[in-house]
């Protein structure tokens, strides 16, 4: 009882301190150093870029004034426990109005509990695992599409290839996101004519796929789907080459869309399929950046590396807050939270709107690396370009 009273008192104090505060404070704890830094940086940089652009355009309209956005980013050193403490600090000490999320489902799982505890809305573009959205939390929203749907468009594409692959190997790392992907893929594959002959879960710390690859080779599997992290996918492709494993097709949940991944593999990246909920196309119009293509160019000029869907998703998070604040015409957390649940707008990331659990639903576009370039192959509206299929053997490339 005392806890409840205390919590209420704290909330009222927080609210009182916020109503008259300006500018609007956004807070995030991101992996700027540590093992996940090479993806975490997309979020730190993109959040900043978005806030700058929005402020340059005049800021956020609340009531009769336009308020600027202020961004505070903390480095959680890729440590989940530290990120949780930092979010508490952001909410209670730095008194931010709203929260932006970290990268990776396991971080989001832990950090969103803080948002829920303190009733501060958090929009994150880094976690897609089903568990995040199945807890009935009200204050967490996500701009990454559900993990279980990741391979859907790839499976559709596979059904249209000639000759269609008959056997499938499904490999997945044992973390929250990849397990969700595998569960969903298994279910969807069972509705097709594909037969899953290898279904292997591997440890996220693994870098040695030799045994699995040898098994796949001995079974002559047609198609391989891998749900894992960039470092594992990289190893997988390299080891597939050294062991001379030649499936007709292989597709990966991560890695392929990012430029430094393709650079690290060089020629070996060719023919690999991947997916992205985002392509930097001029067709995706945006209020602040013009369109996705312009965004990509400016981002590259500003930060020195190409953005991918992580960055675009992060920008969408900031924009979603702006739209929600303007629609609620207030910075009261409860009102904004309700407004976020109802947003529906177009951005450089695509159409942003959240389902009842708080998650976005965007189709994945199947992409393929062809002659060193990333080519969108198959989107929600069907075939965009011809895929190079089947994959030629390693010795014949």
């Amino acid at each position, binding site marked *: 009882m005392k806890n409840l009273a205390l919590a209420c008192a704290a909330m009222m104090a927080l609210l009182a301190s916020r109503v008259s505060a300006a500018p609007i404070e956004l807070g995030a704890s991101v992996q700027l150093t*540590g093992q996940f*830094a090479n993806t975490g940086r997309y979020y730190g940089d993109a959040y900043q870029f978005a806030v700058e652009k929005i402020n340059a355009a005049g800021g956020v309209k609340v009531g009769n004034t336009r308020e600027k956005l202020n961004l505070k980013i903390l480095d959680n050193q890729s440590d989940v426990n530290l990120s949780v403490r930092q979010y508490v600090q952001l909410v209670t000490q730095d008194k931010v109005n709203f929260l932006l999320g970290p990268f990776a489902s396991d971080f989001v799982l832990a950090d969103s509990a803080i948002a829920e505890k303190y009733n501060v809305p958090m929009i994150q573009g880094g976690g897609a695992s089903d568990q995040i959205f199945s807890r009935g939390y009200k204050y967490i929203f996500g701009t990454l599409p559900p993990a279980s749907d990741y391979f859907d468009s790839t499976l559709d594409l596979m059904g249209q290839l000639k000759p269609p692959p008959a056997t499938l190997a499904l490999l997945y790392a044992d973390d929250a996101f990849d397990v969700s992907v595998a569960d969903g893929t298994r279910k969807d594959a069972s509705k097709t004519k594909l037969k899953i002959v290898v279904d292997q879960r591997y*440890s996220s710390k693994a870098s040695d796929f030799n*045994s699995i690859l040898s*098994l796949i*080779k*001995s079974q002559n599997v047609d198609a391989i789907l891998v749900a894992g992290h960039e470092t594992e996918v990289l190893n997988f492709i390299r*080891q597939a080459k*050294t062991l001379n494993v030649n499936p007709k097709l292989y597709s990966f949940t991560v890695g392929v869309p990012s430029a430094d991944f393709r650079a690290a593999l060089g020629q*070996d990246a060719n023919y690999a399929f991947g997916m992205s909920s985002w392509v930097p196309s001029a067709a995706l119009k945006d209020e602040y950046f013009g369109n996705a293509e312009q965004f990509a160019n400016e981002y590259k000029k500003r930060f020195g590396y190409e953005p991918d869907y992580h960055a675009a998703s992060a920008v969408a998070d900031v924009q979603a807050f702006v739209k929600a604040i303007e629609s609620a015409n207030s910075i009261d957390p409860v009102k904004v939270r309700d407004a976020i649940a109802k947003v529906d707008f177009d951005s450089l990331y695509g159409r942003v709107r959240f389902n009842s659990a708080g998650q976005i639903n965007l189709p994945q576009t199947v992409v393929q690396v062809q002659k060193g370039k990333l080519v969108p192959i198959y989107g929600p509206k069907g075939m965009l370009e011809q895929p190079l299929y089947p994959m030629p053997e390693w010795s014949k490339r």
Partner: protein
Amino acid sequence: MQLLWQILVNGVLLGGLYALMALGLVLVWGVLNIVNLAHGALIMLGAYACYYLFTGLGWDPFAALPVAMVLLFCLGYVIQRYVLNLIIRAPMFNTLLITFGFEVVITYLAQIAFSADFRTINPSYAGANFSFLGATVPLVRLLAFAVALALTLGLWLFLEHTRIGRAIRATAQNLIAARLYGVNPRHLYALTFGIGAALAGAAGTLYGVVSQINPYIGSGLTAKSFAIAIIGGLDKSIYVLAGGLFLGIVEAVTALYIGPTYTDVVSFGILVLVLIVRPTGLLGRTA
């Protein structure tokens, strides 16, 4: 059957690299009684040294290997001479802790210097392979295996048949007597640790060609090296070959027949079992 043969070949090739990884650790442990928790971090540095020589100067990784070894030797020498020598007669536990501290510092500095991006060392022949009795043998793995064997044998010869090698062994066995013979222990200790670091550097180079590197691979490699060292036995550095091969094969077979998520259970389970049942390792003499 074909599959099992391929798995065994995989395991043996991996085992050679494993043996080299643990070699430096075994040397330092056996001679100096220092359990180096920063061993994996040194491997990581060796990998980066090779990476920069490869991408920056265009050197073939196997040519860069000796250079990486020299660089790591110097680093190891300095660490031992100016820091570890100061605490070497303290309870053994202290060296455990201090090397942990080094691991943290080295990893952090590496991340600042090299960024968190993962890197690969990708020479043009990285994908080459050939067939051996029905199994596909990747060329770089075979080369790594050969280098690992050569270095292990080289170390054994060094310790048995050269003056310095014998001096190192003498100092390990009886410091006072060695001193009476004119040995300078500070220098010798530093030399030993330097050699251990150089071997770690070599392992790092090979690891970078076979897998990918980032600043955080250190702690995992240290844990693995411990398992290999203990399983093989610490008496003679050559026993590490047994430990490496054993673990390489066991892991490959486990990944296939039980499941890839169980390799750590098996590796470390065997480590604990060996410690409990036969602490001197598979080949060591029971004390």
